[in-house]
C-alpha cells in the first residue's frame, strides 16, 4: 500500500512541474462532443484526446491494439475474436467491458440515432459478447486486416438509456471516455478545458489541454507569437515565413491526406469533349498557382504521393499553351483577339469554390488571370456552404469547381469516381474505372487492391475528369515549451499522451 502511495505522490509532484496547459486554437469550438455524431475536424481532434477505439495508429501508421489486447482472425476470414484490455476505467470510474463495444456498434447502426459514423460499422454483420472482456465479430465479407477498420471510438453503454441516441443527448455536455484526457469544463468563453485523467491505463504527461475558439485564422498566428497559445493546428501559408523565423515555435507537417483539384462538370456539352478538357488542363500551370499560397507536391492522380495507391509512372502534366491551342482549334474553336469562339459563342467558364477556404480565393484569382491571358474567360463565384450544397451537389450548376478532398487512412475514392458514387458531382462516368473500383472494393488482398488502384490512377489521369493540382504542405506550429511532439497526419492528437511540457 505504501509503495502505491509513494507512486501517486511522485506523480502528483511531477504533475505540478507540468502545470502549464497546452492551449490550441480551432476556428470553431465543437458544438457536440459525442463520437457518434462527429462531423467537423475540430470534433475529430478533440475526440482523439477523450475517447479511444479498439485499435489505433502507431507512429508508423500501422494499427496497434488500444482498448483491444489481442485478436484472432478465423480461417475463413469471416469472423474474429477480440480480447479486451484489463483494468481500463471510464472517466466516471466505471470499468470498461465488452458491453460498451457492443453498445457502440449497435448505436452507430441504429437508424433513429442517424449517426454520421454509421458507415464505419457497415462491414460488421454481428457482434456477440463472449465474456466480460471478450467478444466475437462476424463480417459481411472476408476481411484481411479488420483491425484497420476498428479505430472508431467506443462510448460507455451505462451513459445512455438506449441505443437510439439523440444528437442533443446530454452526454454531449458531459462526455465520458476512456482516453488520457477528461473534459473538465465548457468555459463560457467557448473554450473547453481537458484535464489529465489520473485513472488512465497508459501514460500521459501534459496536465491540461485547452481548446480555444479563435474565429479569425489571421489572429491565431499572432496569438501563438504572443504566447497566448501553445499550438496552432493549421498554419496559414501567409504566416509560415514569420513562424519559421520565430525561435520559440517549431513547425510540424500536418498533411491530413488531402489533395486539391479543379473538376470539369461533364453535364456541360463542351466539357464532355476530351479535347476541350485536355486543352484546358494544358493551359493551367499548377506550380505558379501553388507558389503564392505555399509549398507542396504536384500530383497526377487522385492520391497523395505518399499513398501506396499512387501510380508514380503517370507523370505530372506540364503546361503546354501551343498544344492546348491546337487541341481547341481541333475541337472547332477559332482564336479571336480576346477569346476562343465556336459557332458564335466565346468559351467562358464559371468556376465555383467555397468562401471559407481562404487560400482558394488566391488560387482562383491566379487561375483566372492565367486562363484570361490564353483567351478563356473565367468568372469566379465564391459560395457559402449552403449555396455550395445547392449548386454543386444537387443542381450541378457550374462549369469548373476548385476544391480539395481529405481522406482518412483508407483513402477510399469510390464515392468520388464511381458512376454511382454519392460524391461524384463532376458527373464522371467510365466503365473501365467503374469495374476497377468495384474489384478494388471487394479485393481483400492488399497487394491486389494496390495494383487495381494504380490502374484506376492511370485511367483517371487519361480521361482527365479533373486537373489534379497538389497536396499542400500544411504545417502545425507548436511552442518549443512542448517537447516530444508527435502529430498524427489526420487525427492530430493520437499520440498527445506522449507530449511533455518542460
Amino acid at each position, binding site marked *: 500500500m505504501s509503495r502505491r502511495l509513494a507512486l501517486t505522490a511522485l506523480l502528483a509532484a511531477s504533475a505540478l512541474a507540468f502545470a502549464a496547459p497546452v492551449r490550441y486554437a480551432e476556428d470553431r469550438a465543437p458544438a457536440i462532443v459525442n463520437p457518434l455524431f462527429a462531423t467537423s475536424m475540430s470534433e475529430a481532434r478533440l475526440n482523439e484526446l477523450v475517447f479511444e477505439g479498439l485499435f489505433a495508429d502507431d507512429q508508423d501508421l500501422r494499427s496497434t491494439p488500444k482498448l483491444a489486447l489481442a485478436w484472432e482472425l478465423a480461417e475463413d476470414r469471416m469472423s474474429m475474436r477480440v480480447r479486451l484490455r484489463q483494468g481500463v476505467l471510464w472517466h466516471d470510474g466505471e470499468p470498461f467491458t465488452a458491453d460498451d463495444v457492443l453498445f457502440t456498434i449497435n448505436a452507430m447502426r441504429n437508424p433513429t440515432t442517424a449517426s454520421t459514423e454509421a458507415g464505419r460499422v457497415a462491414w460488421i454483420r454481428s457482434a456477440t459478447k463472449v465474456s466480460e472482456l471478450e467478444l466475437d465479430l462476424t463480417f459481411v465479407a472476408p476481411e484481411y486486416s479488420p483491425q484497420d477498420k476498428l479505430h472508431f471510438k467506443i462510448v460507455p453503454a451505462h451513459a445512455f438509456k438506449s441505443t437510439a441516441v439523440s444528437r442533443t443527448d446530454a452526454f454531449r455536455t458531459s462526455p465520458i471516455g476512456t482516453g488520457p484526457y477528461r473534459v473538465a469544463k465548457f468555459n463560457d468563453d467557448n473554450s473547453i478545458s481537458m484535464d489529465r485523467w489520473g485513472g488512465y491505463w497508459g501514460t500521459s504527461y501534459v496536465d491540461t489541454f485547452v481548446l480555444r475558439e479563435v474565429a*479569425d485564422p*489571421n489572429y491565431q498566428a*499572432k496569438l501563438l507569437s504572443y504566447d497566448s497559445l501553445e499550438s496552432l493546428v493549421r498554419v496559414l501559408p*501567409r504566416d509560415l515565413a514569420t513562424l519559421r523565423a520565430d525561435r520559440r515555435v517549431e513547425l510540424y507537417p500536418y498533411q491530413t491526406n488531402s489533395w486539391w483539384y479543379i473538376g470539369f462538370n461533364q453535364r456541360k456539352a463542351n466539357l464532355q469533349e476530351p479535347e476541350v478538357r485536355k486543352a484546358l488542363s494544358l493551359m493551367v500551370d499548377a506550380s*505558379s498557382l501553388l*507558389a*503564392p499560397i505555399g509549398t507542396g507536391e504536384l500530383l497526377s492522380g487522385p492520391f497523395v504521393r505518399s499513398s501506396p495507391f499512387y501510380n508514380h509512372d503517370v507523370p505530372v502534366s506540364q503546361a503546354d499553351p501551343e498544344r492546348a491551342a491546337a487541341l481547341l482549334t481541333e475541337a472547332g474553336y477559332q482564336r479571336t483577339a480576346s477569346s476562343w469562339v465556336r459557332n458564335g459563342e466565346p468559351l467562358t467558364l464559371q468556376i465555383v469554390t467555397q*468562401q471559407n477556404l481562404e487560400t482558394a*480565393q*488566391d488560387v*482562383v*484569382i*491566379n487561375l*483566372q*488571370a492565367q486562363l*484570361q491571358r490564353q483567351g478563356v474567360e473565367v468568372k*469566379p463565384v*465564391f459560395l*457559402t456552404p449552403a449555396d455550395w450544397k445547392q449548386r454543386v451537389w444537387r443542381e450541378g450548376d457550374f462549369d469548373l469547381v476548385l476544391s480539395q478532398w481529405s481522406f482518412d487512412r483508407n483513402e477510399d475514392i469510390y464515392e468520388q469516381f464511381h458512376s454511382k458514387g454519392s460524391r461524384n458531382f463532376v458527373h464522371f462516368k467510365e466503365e473501365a474505372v467503374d469495374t476497377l473500383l468495384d474489384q478494388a472494393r471487394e479485393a481483400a488482398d492488399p497487394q491486389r487492391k494496390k495494383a487495381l488502384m494504380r490502374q484506376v490512377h492511370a485511367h483517371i489521369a487519361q480521361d482527365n475528369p479533373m486537373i489534379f493540382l497538389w497536396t499542400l504542405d500544411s504545417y502545425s506550429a507548436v511552442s518549443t515549451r512542448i517537447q516530444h511532439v508527435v502529430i498524427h497526419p489526420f487525427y492530430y492528437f493520437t499520440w498527445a499522451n506522449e507530449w511533455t511540457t518542460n
Partner: protein
Amino acid sequence: MRLSLAQRFGAVVLAVVVLAAVWSQLAGFDPVLGVAPQAANLGPSLAHPLGTDHLGREVITRLAAACGAFVFPGLLAVTLCGALAVPLGALAGWAGGSVERFVRAMLGTVASIPPLVLALLLCSAWGNSHTHLALAAAIAYMPTFAEAVFARIATLRQAEFLVAARAYGLSEWRIVWRHLIVAACGPTIARQGLLLFSEYLVLETTLSYLGGFGVQEPMPSWGNMITFEWGRGNLAPLAAPVIALWLTLLALAWLAHGAAEERSHV
C-alpha cells in the same frame, strides 16, 4: 446658399466618391484582373500611385471600385427609406391626434430593433446581398427619418401661412405636399438622407471587415481591404481604405450638420 468651408469640403469628397463609383461601374471594373503575384506589395510610386496589395492588385483602382459597394446600395436605401418615411411622417404630423399616436407607436416598434441586428438577420435568412442590406438599412432607419419629418411638420401645423392657404381652399394634400414637404422639409429630408447614407457606409464596411456577410473577396470594399491587408507589413494598401473611410464619414457628417443649420435660417 452660402456653403461654409466644412460643407464645401464635404461636397468635394462626396462628389469624388460618387464619381469613383460611377467610373468603376461604367469601366466595368473586373475585381480579379490585374492580379500579378510578382508585383505584390509594391510601395506607392508613379506607376502605382497607392502601391499594390498582397496579390499585386492596384490599390487605387480597388479603392475607387470599392465606392460602388456602398454608393448605389446606399442610394437605394435612402430612396426606399424616404419613400416610406416621408409620407408616414407627414401623415402623422399633419393629421395629429389618434392617427399620429398610432403611426408613431408603429415607428417605435421598428425603432426598437437596432439596424445591425436587422441587417444580420435579413442577410442570414434571405442571403447576403447588397439589396437585402439596403432593405434592412431602409427599414431600420425609417423611424428616425419619419420622426424628423413629423417633428418639422408638427411645428409648422399651426403656422399662419398654412391657415391662410387653407382659407384659399387649397386641397389638403396640395398644401401638405407643396408647402410642407417640399418647402419646409427639404433641408430635413436632405439631412436625414445624408445621415442614412453615412449609416449605410458604416454598416457595409463593418460587415465586409468582419467577414461572413457584406462584400466578399475578391470584390473590393474598404472593410475587407482592411481585413485582408492587415498584418502583411505593407502600410499603403492598409492606410488608403482607413483614410478614405474617415474622410468620407467626416464629409457626410459635416454636410448633414450643414443641412441642419440651413433649416434654422428658414
